[in-house]
Structure formats: C-alpha cells, structure tokens
C-alpha cells in the first residue's frame, strides 16, 4: 500500500521522466558539442576568444532546457489548467502536503539536472560554470510556472504569468550579464562568471520570498478547488487560435460554391488570426523601439551608481526590445505550421472529422488549405519584416556597435543597395522565389505533421536516425580536422551524403506519383500543374542566384525537385490521414 506522497511522486515521475531525461541529455550533449567544436576550430592565433564563446554557448545549452518549464506535465490534467492530482482530493492529506510534495519534485529536478551538467562540465573543462545561483534561478522559475499552472483557471492567465515571470528573470539575467567593467566584451564573460554570478544575499532572500509566496498562493487556490469553490477549468482549446481571435472579423460565408466556402473557413480559422497577430506585432515593434530610446536615456542619466554601463551609454531596454522583435519574427515563422488543422486534445493528435467529411476532393482540399495558409503567412512575414527593418534605425547605431562592432547603417545600407540594384525582372523573380518558398515551408510543416501523426513510430525512428546521422557527420568533420581520418575520405562521405539526399527527392516524387495515381488522389492535370510551377520556381531561383553573383551549378538546382515534391506530397499526405 503506497503512501499518498509516494503515489503522487510516482504519477508525476511517470509523466515527466522522459522529458527530464531528454532535457538533461540535450543540454549536456549540446554543451559538450559546442565546447569540442570551438576547441577544434579555434584559430591558432587567438584560441581563447573562440573557446570563451564556446563556453558561453555551452552555458546557454545547459540552462535553456531547464528554463522552459515542464512541457509534458499538462498531460496529467488533460491540458487544462488547475491542480492535476485531483484524485488525491478525497484522501486524508493536507492540501499543503498535496501541493508541496509534487511542487518540490518539479522544482528540485530541473535545478539538480542543471547542477549535474554544470559539475560535469566543470570537471572536464576549466571554465567556472556557475552552480548555486543559476540553480536557484531555475528552481524559482519552475516553481512559479508550476504554481501558475495549478492555480489559474484559464490558460491565458497561466501563459501570461509564465511569460511575465520568465521575462522578468531574463531581464534580471541580462542586467547581471551586462554589468561588467569597461574595456571588456561579452565574449570575455566566462572569466567574469564568478563575479557576475555572485549573488548578494538579498537576491537569494528575494528568490526564497518569491518561492514561498508562490507556494502559499498555490496552496490557497488548490484548497479552493478542493472544496469545490473554484469551478473546474473549462475545456482548454485543443490547438488552434482562441475563439475570440477567430471571430474577430465576421463576414458571411459564401454559399455559391464549395471552394469559396472552404476558403472562408480556412481564412477564419487559420488565415486571419495569423494576419491579426502579425499586424499587432508590426504596430507594436516600432512603438516599443521608439519608447525604449528615451527610457534608456533616462536610465543613463539617472542611475550611474547602480549599473556599470559602457562609455557609450546604458543599453538596458533596447537589447530587450530588439530581442522581442527577433522573437516576434520567430513567432510569425511558426505560424506557418499546421495548415491541415491538427487538433491536440487530451494527448492525442487528430484531424477534425467535420472537415474531413465535407464533400471535397483531397488534392483540392490540401492545396486550398496550404495556399490560404501560405498567403496569409507571407503577408504576415512581410508585415512584421518590413516593420522590423524600417524601425531598426530608431534604436540608433550605438547599440549595434556595442553588440556587434558594426554600425547598423552599414548593414542595412548594403542590403538596401543590393535590392535597389535589381532589375524589375530580377525583383519579380525574387518575389516568386519568396512566395513559392513560403508555400514549400508551409507544406513541409503540414506534410511532416501529417505523416508523423499517421505513422508515429516510423516517424520517431526516422527522426532519431537523421539526428544520429547529422551528429556523426559533425564528428566526422571534426575527425577530419584533427587529421584522424584522411581528408579525401571525409570529402567523399560528405559528397556521397549530398548525392543520396539529392537522389532521394526524385525517388520520393516517383513513389508518391505512382501511389497517388493508383489511389486516384492525383490527376494528370494536377501533376502537370505541379511540374509547371516547379519549373517557374527553378527559373526564378536561378535568376536570383545570378543576380547575387553566384554562378549557377548543377548542385544549385536542388529547389526544383523540392518544389515538385511539396506539390505531390501534400495531397498524398492528406489522403493518408483523411482515410486512416
């Protein structure tokens, strides 16, 4: 007979063990790889600069996995916010114990994992990887994230708290990492780690206070859930945009044809939300940039005592908003996924039966969904990209000189000049490449998602094999660098891998065409259309290459089969998952 504490721990361990293992492995392996690589490829003249860089990357590697919180934990509660171990509510245990035991586990494990990897790296390398301070950071972050998940009723609230707290911690980290004496660069930071990461006791006291406050608040909320005062969380949205965003723009569904109705559907559920998010970001970025400049100026004026800034001024907020803008570009990039509309409900991935039983052909359905998604995604990218590009000068050249040693105007000027020098035809070709490239990007996500959902085990095996293969290629390159393996062998293997990758594409196309025709998913007309579009893509690609001055060679023709592959894989993959 297990005690309640053991039962809870076992249940949580069962859900999180794989994730904990992966995080530890990924962090440590990534860190080791960075250190080995930089050590191997360091220019013989000034090796320490490169190896220091490697150490910084390694530190990032071992911190980042523990900094994202627990991803698989929501599975316990069916992805709803609220205390997951509801079965314990009827057991005679105190709420504080019920909350405290799992929370302690979820807080200690990431910190311990970090400590383990840091100690390992410390033992192998000379760098003084920080131990207690960062572990305390990680612990308190995980604690607050868990607390927010368990106490709040709405997913939006938990996400908000999580984001605010992580941002605050990141700000704090940057504050620490950039407060170094003049004359040194952030590349040199490993030497300064002992001083940077030497938290005063007040910091630790603050961390403890935050931890206790979060714990106390969670116990109070869970007690309310236990006594039934707080109603159970509403069913969390599977995956897809929240309903308010979808219904933000209401326009009537056309009834004249099925295609128009399907376009309306995809626009509403996946297209317009993307555009709305992009528009919001596009407006927010210049505003944030504009606001950060005077704030930084004010800080520079005000608090020279507390912060050691460089002689160019204090860059406190501006790197933050720059990072935010970069992250928003990433956010927009990942809106290109899930064109087929997978839903993620209670740990299972599935396609909506409603969408799949509409009287519409599979090939047309796939293309329509992908076209709508990529069109909106392209517009979103353009909006955020243009906004980002044109707002950069607001931040001022000083920032870029501080961070990369090169003024912004040089970089921007070079690219702007290049664009201006293009002829109309080349510009058009560039547009074609970008547009079709975006389509390929969206298709890739959708097809991979579809095939991985349909065949999860082969998908996992293929992914692990590819990862292993990539890693072994990296090690091979390393070995060649050290002269362990003769250079010609390394070249041969790399070239062979390149050719195999290139050959796999026509092979895949042939197979999919054969199966597609046999199952009546693809028609001759469709295939011809796909071929023509790929040809146009290839022509545009070559034009762009020539414009950049790169001489087109046979090896540069790989986008042609890629476009064709995307075109034929999309209907076939949807067919596989529509009729399981």
């Amino acid at each position: 007979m297990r005690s309640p504490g053991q039962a809870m721990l076992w249940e949580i361990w069962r859900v999180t063990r794989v994730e904990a293992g992966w995080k530890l492995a990924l962090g440590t392996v990534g860190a080791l790889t960075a250190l080995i690589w930089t050590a191997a490829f360091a220019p013989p003249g000034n090796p320490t600069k490169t190896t220091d860089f490697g150490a910084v990357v390694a530190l990032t590697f071992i911190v980042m996995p523990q900094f994202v919180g627990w991803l698989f934990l929501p599975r316990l509660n069916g992805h709803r916010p609220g205390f997951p171990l509801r079965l314990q509510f009827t057991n005679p245990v105190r709420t504080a114990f019920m909350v405290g035991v799992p929370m302690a586990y979820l807080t200690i494990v990431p910190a311990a994992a970090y400590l383990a990897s840091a100690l390992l790296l410390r033992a192998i390398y000379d760098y003084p990887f920080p131990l207690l301070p960062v572990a305390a950071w990680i612990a308190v972050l995980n604690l607050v994230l868990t607390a927010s998940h368990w106490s709040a009723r709405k997913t939006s609230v938990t996400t908000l708290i999580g984001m605010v707290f992580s941002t605050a911690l990141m700000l704090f980290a940057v504050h620490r990492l950039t407060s170094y004496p003049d004359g040194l660069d952030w590349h040199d930071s490993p030497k300064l780690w002992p001083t940077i990461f030497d938290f005063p006791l007040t910091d630790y006291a603050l961390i403890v206070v935050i931890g206790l406050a979060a714990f106390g608040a969670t116990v109070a909320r869970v007690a309310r859930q236990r006594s039934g005062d707080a109603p159970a969380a509403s069913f969390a949205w599977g995956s897809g945009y929240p309903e308010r965003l979808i219904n933000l723009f209401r326009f009537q569904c056309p009834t004249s044809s099925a295609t128009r109705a399907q376009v309306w559907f995809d626009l509403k559920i996946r297209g317009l939300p993307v555009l709305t998010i992009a528009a919001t970001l596009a407006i927010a970025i210049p505003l944030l940039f504009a606001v950060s400049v005077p704030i930084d100026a004010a800080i520079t004026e005000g608090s020279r005592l507390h912060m050691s800034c460089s002689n160019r001024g204090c860059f406190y907020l501006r790197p933050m908003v720059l990072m935010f803008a970069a992250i928003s570009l990433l956010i927009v990039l990942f809106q290109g996924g899930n064109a087929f509309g997978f839903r993620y409900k209670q740990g299972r991935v599935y396609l909506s039966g409603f969408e799949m039983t509409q009287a519409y052909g599979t090939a047309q359905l796939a293309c329509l969904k992908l076209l709508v998604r990529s069109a909106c995604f392209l517009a979103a990218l353009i909006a955020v990209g243009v906004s980002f590009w044109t707002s950069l000068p607001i931040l001022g050249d000083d920032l870029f000189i501080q961070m990369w040693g090169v003024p912004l105007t040089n970089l921007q000027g070079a690219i702007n000049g290049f664009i201006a020098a293009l002829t109309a035809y080349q510009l058009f070709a560039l547009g074609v490449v970008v547009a079709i490239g975006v389509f390929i990007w969206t298709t890739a996500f959708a097809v991979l998602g579809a095939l991985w959902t349909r065949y999860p085990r082969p998908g996992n095996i293929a992914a692990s094999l590819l990862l292993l293969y990539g890693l072994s290629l990296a090690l091979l390159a390393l070995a060649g660098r050290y002269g362990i393996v003769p250079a010609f062998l390394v070249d041969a293997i790399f070239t062979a891998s390149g050719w195999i990758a290139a050959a796999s594409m026509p092979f895949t196309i042939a197979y999919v065409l054969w199966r597609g025709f046999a199952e009546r998913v693809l028609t001759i007309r469709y295939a011809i259309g796909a071929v023509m579009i790929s040809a146009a893509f290839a022509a545009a690609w070559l034009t762009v290459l020539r414009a950049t001055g790169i001489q087109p060679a046979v090896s540069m023709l790989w986008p042609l089969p890629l476009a064709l592959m995307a075109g034929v894989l999309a209907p076939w993959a949807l067919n596989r998952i529509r009729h399981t």
Partner: protein
Amino acid sequence: MENTVVDVNDLSRSFGGKSALDGVSFRATAGQVYGLVGSNGAGKTTLLKHLLGLWRATTGSVRIFGLDPVRDPVGVLSRVGYLSEERDLPEWMRVDELMRYTQAYHPTWDESYARELLETFALDPAKKIKDLSKGMRAQAGLIAAVAHRPELLILDEPSSGLDAVVRRDILDAVVRAVADDGRTVIFSSHLLDEVERMSDHVTMIQNGRVTLSGLLDDVRRTYQRSRVHFVDHMDRPPVLETALAMEGGGRAWSVVHSGSLEQFHHSVAARGGEVVESRDATLEEIFLARAGRSRQQVEAA
C-alpha cells in the same frame, strides 16, 4: 432488383492488435431503415466510419452507391448526410454559418426545410456552437445532415444523452426522410425500443462480429419468450437445448429460446414442466439474452 445503396463485404479491421471488426458483411437497399445495435465498443461506430471513408478498408470492401468512399470521397459524401457520435462541429461557428457552410457543399440544399427545422427546434441562429447544450448541438448537426435531402443518412447514436423532446425531433426527421423521399437511413443506437420502432432491418454486432442480421420482424420471429412452470422446485435454471436465457426462480421460469416451438415443448416436458404462454421475443430480450449468453459461454470456458 432493388437498389443497393451500401455494400460492405467481409470487412475486418484491427487497431493496435485488437480486432474491432471481424468479417463484417452488411447490405442496405434504398428506402429502408437499418438499425445497428450492440454494446459499447462492439464496433458500430467503426463500421459507420468505414462507410464514410474515415477509415480505409484494409481487408474486404466497402461500396456506397457503387463507389469506394476512399477513392471517390466527393461522389459519396455529396449524397450522404452524417451525424457523428461526438457531434464534431467547429466550436467557433454560429448556427447560421454552419447552415451556409454546409449549403455551399450541397446544391440540393432545401433552405425552406432548414428554416422549418430551425424553427421547430427553436434554435437561435446567432448562437455559437460552443454555447449550445448537448441536445441543441445534436439538433444543429441533424439539420446540417438532413437539410440537403441526402440519399443516405448515417446517424451514429443520434439519441444518446438526449432528452425525450430532442429524441422525438430526431425520430421525426428520420421518419420524414424515409417517408418523403424514399431515402435510406442507417443509425446505430443502444436504445432498443427506439430501434424496434424505427428499423425495418436490424443488425446486431458483438465483439466486431455480426451476430444477427435481417428484417426486424423475421429476427423477432426467430426468438420466442415463453413462461414455463415446473413440477419440481429448481434452484438453478435447468438446461434446455434451445434456450438462450432463463429468468425466474423456483417453479416459474421465463425463457428466451430459438428454434421451433414444438421442440421447446418437448424439451420442457422432458424436464417435467409445461409451457404456459409463448410469444415472439422483443428486441431487448433478444439482445440481453445473446449478450448474456456470450458471458455464460466465457464463464463455462
């Protein structure tokens, strides 16, 4: 020759090693109502999903209107109306948007019929699906399924979890579909009195196998329920050859049995009893007897 609407031939399907359907054959002709009965997990929904092409037939064949729903989804689905068990409708859509969206796919949409049904059900067209109760969701899904007057109507557990009023609405829609247009209806249910009223043909599925199939009246005639009185007091039910289930105690027993009545009279007399009364068994009695029988067989083995 009658018009064969659905033709399922020796269909088998297993999920992760467990067999969900085992050699199932099923035929449906136009203008008839087919009831599918079976306990939860027996395979009814799996069979219906095969008819729609949501599952691909790995062994055996499925033909709707002579077409394969996997190879020709448009040809099949444009003539089929479907109400799924979990009422899978987009949560964000409004009822009127759902109507318009479905209308776009089916040129045979009857707007006046749809509006009439909306009024009868008292559904607010401006309400979002996520704000509808379970019964209203079933009603909305039903309107979308029947308003385009499909040749084949497939309803998966249409009455499950619904109150009597909504259930009546659904039965009415089914009756009208068959009476007005000579359409075919296939519905699965575990409310046996509903199946008994509404079906022309009944098919019973247990553990993925078809155990009974045929005209409802024929099936019922095959099984009788008799009241039997014995001379001696019995603690346990006596073994009678054609009996499927026995209820009662002491000297008075109620038996559900198949086969000829004469044979039954003989075997009862041989055990020292007499048959007091006999009638055709109801569907519920047949179902319970067969379900109980499989349990008894398992116990014996």
